[in-house]
């Protein structure tokens, strides 16, 4: 299996946990991001994710390199699902193993932050009365066309 992948089918978190387990790993953290029904009082019907697949997988592998530079004994696997996702479906999974637990938590949280910053994946929220591509407008090094 690929350790960094964009998938279209349901994510099976165990697959990624198993991919990072090894005899030296005493701790594994598996983060899953799920589709939430309510966001700031607005009810989501479902989500649609799109990605620049080849670049997204490359960027996820780069995040792994960053993680291994910061926490050398960790091992990490990441998958993001695209297409139509319903409430409670898993959009993203991050599995991190480490000899000791502290790094497994830290590296995992770092990875999700970086995914939200640099991996070309987009979320469209579909509500009862509309839909919108989400994107953090506050984020920095974007170009603004005038």
């Amino acid at each position, binding site marked *: 299996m690929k350790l960094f992948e964009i998938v279209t089918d349901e994510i099976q978190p165990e697959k990624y946990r198993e991919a990072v387990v090894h005899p030296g790993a005493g701790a594994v953290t598996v983060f899953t*991001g799920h589709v939430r029904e309510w966001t700031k009082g607005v009810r989501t019907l479902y989500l649609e*994710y*799109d*990605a*620049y697949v*080849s*670049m*997204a997988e*490359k960027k996820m592998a780069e995040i792994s390199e960053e993680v291994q530079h910061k926490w050398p004994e960790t091992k990490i696997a990441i998958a*993001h699902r695209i297409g139509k996702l319903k409430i409670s479906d898993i*959009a*993203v999974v991050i599995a991190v193993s480490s000899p000791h637990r502290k790094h497994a938590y830290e590296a995992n949280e770092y990875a*999700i932050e970086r*995914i*939200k*910053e*640099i*991996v*070309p*994946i*987009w*979320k*469209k929220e579909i509500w009862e009365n509309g839909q919108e*591509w*989400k*994107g*953090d*407008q506050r*984020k920095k*090094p*974007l*170009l*603004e*066309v*005038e």
Partner: protein
Amino acid sequence: MITLYYFAGLRDKAGVDVEQVQLTGLKVRELLEYVSNKYEGFKGSLIHIAVNEEYALLDDIVKDGDVVAFIPPVSGG
């Protein structure tokens, strides 16, 4: 010849997801101006540009055969 990709909201605005254009030797900045004049709604949008799957700077030069992607603010996770 360069290949242009559009994603998410920018794809909706462009009405296409990929196209090929005969423009090389331009700076990223100039290419951005080109598509912003071509497609309504690009002006005022926040856009990243990736050249060959790497985020590019405004002064980078786009060469023949390059793949350029117009990337709105990401929202994965």
